[in-house]
């Protein structure tokens, strides 16, 4: 039963299985295990980034296609929800219309970019995506009447997802049973389903052909597979899922802006999460996103604690200053790439 749920793609390593179960339990019960605005916010971000990174892994790790437009697709979903909610007023219908429109537009744009550039070399596709993504980012910041420009858009989400909405007499296992809790579970369950869906895709015959194309595209053609069709289909699917992740992100934040969805910085983060977790594994996205988002949110606190504990020593307090967290994040990346060249999942599976 469980095996069917993960489409027969088991973790194939006891340690990996244990880590994944711990992450799943922590995320599934985050509001109860770690009550607090910040920790629940971190958990929701982890869920969303797992889906976003996994959808990128579908492209990079399985299809061998390098794209720099993933944040653009992410942003299309987010802006879709924001614009629909602004125009149609708060309501689940607006969320639905916004995410479906965003995902549809993302898939359409991916189709156009793919058909134009995936016929030729993969590097050309990377360049085109970079250009289109930059153009869209500029466009979004310039069209300020529509998109709010650099300030972004704040919008209202359905009351049932807000803190004022109460159910179950207002309390559940000591946690406020309000719309915020419902919103977390909307995010969690959507992400869980999307992730299982992607596992299904990569373990389907379609996924196998993608892997074959990544390894030797000419050979796949000589067997009889239309390489361009498969690559374009993978690009569209990946774009649509990224857009859905963006829609969830917008719902969670009740805000959308260039910095939260479209920036190149997030694109680089996604790449790092895929590489650290392990390309072409799907589970790598889970581990990469979890580690990365945790580090982004808590490394500063860890450092300030560490800095205090060595306050009496020379030099060390300066190095462990909370303001140096980006430096230490960088060190962590270098170490992880050095010790886990095939990613954490690749290493755990003994490759």
């Amino acid at each position, binding site marked *: 039963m469980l095996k069917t749920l993960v489409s027969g793609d088991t973790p194939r390593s006891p340690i990996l299985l244990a880590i994944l179960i711990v992450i799943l339990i922590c995320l599934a019960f985050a509001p109860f295990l770690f009550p607090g605005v910040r920790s629940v916010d971190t958990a929701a971000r982890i869920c969303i980034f797992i889906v976003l990174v996994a959808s990128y892994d579908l492209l990079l790790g399985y299809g061998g296609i390098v794209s720099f437009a993933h944040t653009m697709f992410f942003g299309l979903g987010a802006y879709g929800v924001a614009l629909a909610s602004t125009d149609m007023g708060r309501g689940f219908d607006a969320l639905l219309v916004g995410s479906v429109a965003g995902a549809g537009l993302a898939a359409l744009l991916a189709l156009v970019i793919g058909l134009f550039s995936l016929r030729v070399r993969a590097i050309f596709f990377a360049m085109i995506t970079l250009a289109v993504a930059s153009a869209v980012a500029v466009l979004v910041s310039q069209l300020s009447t529509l998109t709010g420009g650099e300030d972004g858009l704040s919008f209202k989400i359905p009351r049932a997802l807000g803190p004022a909405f109460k159910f179950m007499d207002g309390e559940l296992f000591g946690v406020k049973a309000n719309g915020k809790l419902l919103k977390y579970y909307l995010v969690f369950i959507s992400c869980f389903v999307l992730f299982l869906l992607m596992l299904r895709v990569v373990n389907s*015959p379609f996924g*196998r*052909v993608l*892997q*074959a194309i990544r*390894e*030797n595209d*000419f*050979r*796949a*053609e*000589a*067997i*009889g*597979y*239309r*390489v361009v069709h498969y690559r374009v289909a993978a690009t569209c699917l990946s774009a649509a899922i990224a857009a859905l992740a963006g829609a969830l992100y917008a719902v969670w934040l009740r805000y959308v802006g260039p910095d939260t969805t479209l920036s190149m910085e997030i694109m680089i983060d996604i790449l790092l999460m895929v590489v650290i977790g392990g390309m*072409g594994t799907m589970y790598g996205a889970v581990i990469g996103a979890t580690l990365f988002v945790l580090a982004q949110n808590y490394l500063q606190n860890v450092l300030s604690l560490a800095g205090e504990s060595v306050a009496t020593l020379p030099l060390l307090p300066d190095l462990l200053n909370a303001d140096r967290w980006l430096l230490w994040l960088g060190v962590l990346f270098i170490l992880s790439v050095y010790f886990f060249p095939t990613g954490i999942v690749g290493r755990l599976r003994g490759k």
Partner: protein
Amino acid sequence: MSDPILKLDGVFTNIAQYHILQGVELTVPRGEVTMLLGRNGVGKTTTLRTIIGHWRAHQGSVTFDGQNITKLPTPAIARAGIGFVPEDMGIFADLTVEENMILAAVSGAIDDARLQWLFTVFPALETFWKKDAGTLSGGQKQMLSIARAMIEERALYLIDEPTKGLAPAIITTMARAIKELKDQGASILLVEQNFAVAKALGDTANVMDDGRVVWSGPMSELATNADLQERLMGLSMEAH
């Protein structure tokens, strides 16, 4: 004689600025093993790759089973009934042997009887069925590469140097596989540098030089004529 399964008419193929094929005339009769021989760099591999559509013929035509396939995309050529075993094997290393074979069965599911037959030809495949193809030895990879082309019945197989760099025992296995394929009625165009294998398998021979087929005739004639071998391929029997 019935019309040939494959016919190349005045085929010219350029790769970048190099004129590799310069008017290849080649006929592959049905149900036979046709050898494509010649020194290194005369265009044997390019001929096979032009047939499958990896390189495009700039002039001339390729006719397969009465259909002009010169301008068809590679997947369409493959699905028309041509199996291709490239020189570099091109197995999918990250996938298992099983997955490699499933992928190769483009029409859908693997035919079990045919798979059992392949297991008798290449027992190693059954042994390593669930293993990653990348972990196989060179000879096993070559067997997988050929088996992958054989998993579905094709009218014509293009096989590029199947015995290159292999141990003698595996060469025997390869030769037997090609023989069995022929006995099933398939036509085969085989590039082979190992003259002993060529002699044992070939029905007709075509020798290439400088991007053209310079000699065609029965393999037996070439095999017994040392002068001809010397002149066409720079071979001498002492060396073999």
